[in-house]
């Protein structure tokens, strides 16, 4: 019975069994990263009897991990900051002027881009970026910011329209300018939805592979997924090394996830349901 307080044991059992499918590949990743080839030959599945941490230090050297990590963090944080500033601003202007044709048109102009598959602009964007000398991390930041715009404006506008206009009118009476109202009243009020947009932007930017692949040519500017791609092509025989390198690339987001799990799940729910 739904109304009872008793645990539904059969369902609990099924849910628990299901997690094996999620956890098994991750368990394999961790164990392989910690073994050496001899241990692998002995048993592929058992937990390693001796831990080979040197896989990690060798992977760090071979992939130039810290440089790639720095690039990834730089691109991700800059994209998140730039996204929050520009996307919330334009969404505010749109949400408060929906009755005007210009702003309404702008809304549909932005939102329609949700249906544009990336491959359609993939070829020309490379020409454009190299023409503008933007085949670098700066270009990557700008492009990530633009490609999130459609979805973010959609989410932001929905949220801003639920904030009462009375607050801003009061501020205007007190002599605040539109800019002042935005930064001092609206922007702080948008904190929950900004968190959502920030989290989603962070995940998609950090994990993105296709955009860096076509934009970045200088190995010094490779991001983490790109490094894995190049690494895989060069050293595809040493699995222990490869898995140590995968694990290090996955770890930052896993740590962020463990710390902010509840936020992330709620954020995803809110952002997509709006």
């Amino acid at each position, binding site marked *: 019975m*739904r109304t009872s307080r008793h645990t539904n044991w059969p369902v609990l059992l099924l*849910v628990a069994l299901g*997690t094996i*499918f999620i956890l098994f590949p991750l368990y394999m*990743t961790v164990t392989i990263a910690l073994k050496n080839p001899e241990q692998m030959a002995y048993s592929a599945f058992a937990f390693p009897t001796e831990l080979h941490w040197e896989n990690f230090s060798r992977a760090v050297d071979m992939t130039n991990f810290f440089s790639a990590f720095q690039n990834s963090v730089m691109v991700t944080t800059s994209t998140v900051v730039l996204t929050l500033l520009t996307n919330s601003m*334009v969404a505010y202007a749109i949400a408060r002027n929906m009755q005007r044709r210009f702003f309404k048109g702008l809304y549909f102009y932005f939102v329609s881009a949700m249906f544009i598959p990336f491959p359609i602009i993939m*070829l020309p964007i490379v020409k454009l970026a190299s023409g503008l000398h933007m085949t670098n991390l700066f270009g990557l930041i700008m492009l990530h910011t633009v490609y999130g715009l459609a979805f973010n404006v959609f989410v932001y506008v929905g949220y801003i329209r639920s904030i009462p206009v009375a607050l801003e009118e009061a501020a205007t009476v007190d002599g605040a300018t539109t800019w002042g109202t935005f930064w001092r009243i609206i922007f702080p009020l948008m904190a929950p939805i900004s968190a959502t947009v920030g989290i989603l932007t962070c995940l998609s930017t950090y994990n993105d*592979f296709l955009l860096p692949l076509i934009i970045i040519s200088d190995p010094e500017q490779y991001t983490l997924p790109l490094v894995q791609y190049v690494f895989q092509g060069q050293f595809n025989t040493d699995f222990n090394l490869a898995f140590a390198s995968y694990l290090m690339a996955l770890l930052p987001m*896993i740590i962020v996830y463990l710390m902010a799990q509840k936020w992330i*799940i709620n954020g995803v729910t809110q952002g997509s349901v709006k």
Partner: protein
Amino acid sequence: MNKRLTAFYWMTVPAVLLFFIFLTLPALQGFYYSLTNWNGFGHQYHFVGFKNYINLFQDDNVGNAYWFTFKFAIVVTIAINVLSLLIALGLNAKIRFRNFFRGIYFLPNILSVLIVGYIFNYLFSNVFTIWGRNLGITSLSTNILGSEQLAWVGVVIVAVWQGIAFNTILYLAGLQTIPTSLYEASNLDGAGKWREFWSITFPLIAPFFTINMVLAMKNSLMVFDQIVALTNGGPGRATQSISHLIYTGGFRGGEFAYQSANSVIYFIVIAMISILQLRFLQRREMDN
């Protein structure tokens, strides 16, 4: 008051500029290139009209990529939606450690698609094959990614493994909008679980079903990272998706203009499918 409006116009400037330069302009350029014979790196090209488009329809590689992508997208969309709805129902039931399990089921969504692909690539070649041999299942004892008939199943498995997470969370959000009083009432009326699901749960989460179908379909039509990590389009061209074909042909095969035409068609196809899906599913929502 006019000053206020001016400020609003200024607020749109950064986003509009960026959006126009980096999205609208390239899309228009892509269409323009699709009418030429440019190879992507030379300085000379000619205007050829719709010749690329005509050739596309006679190209086996293109037909093959569309066939693979559609087969893949339909199977993935159905599998993801069925499984994530089941998991969401499980996670919404009265169970212990609910938040812990939610956390685990959402985990795949935060991981890089490329790296997940590499991990599964290893599992397919070195782990599942051992199981297949031990259990005496011949189809499992060789790497399915190396088989022209089965490689696409491997890509499906990885896409579903990772795609379920996001849709589960959305279904869960939907399930939580249903008031418990409805279930109490149906319990009093003596409705069984099956009846309850089709008469209450499913109709009430219809909007979430719509979102999930459209999102899963759109994401799987754009499949790229998994292909690179698992099969690189092979064996032969058995698992070459449309985006993979545009990427390889456009950047490496000297088919810049030709693949631009392909991406225009691809855009029209995706837009049409998304709109049709939205219309069809939303009408169904209202009927219920």
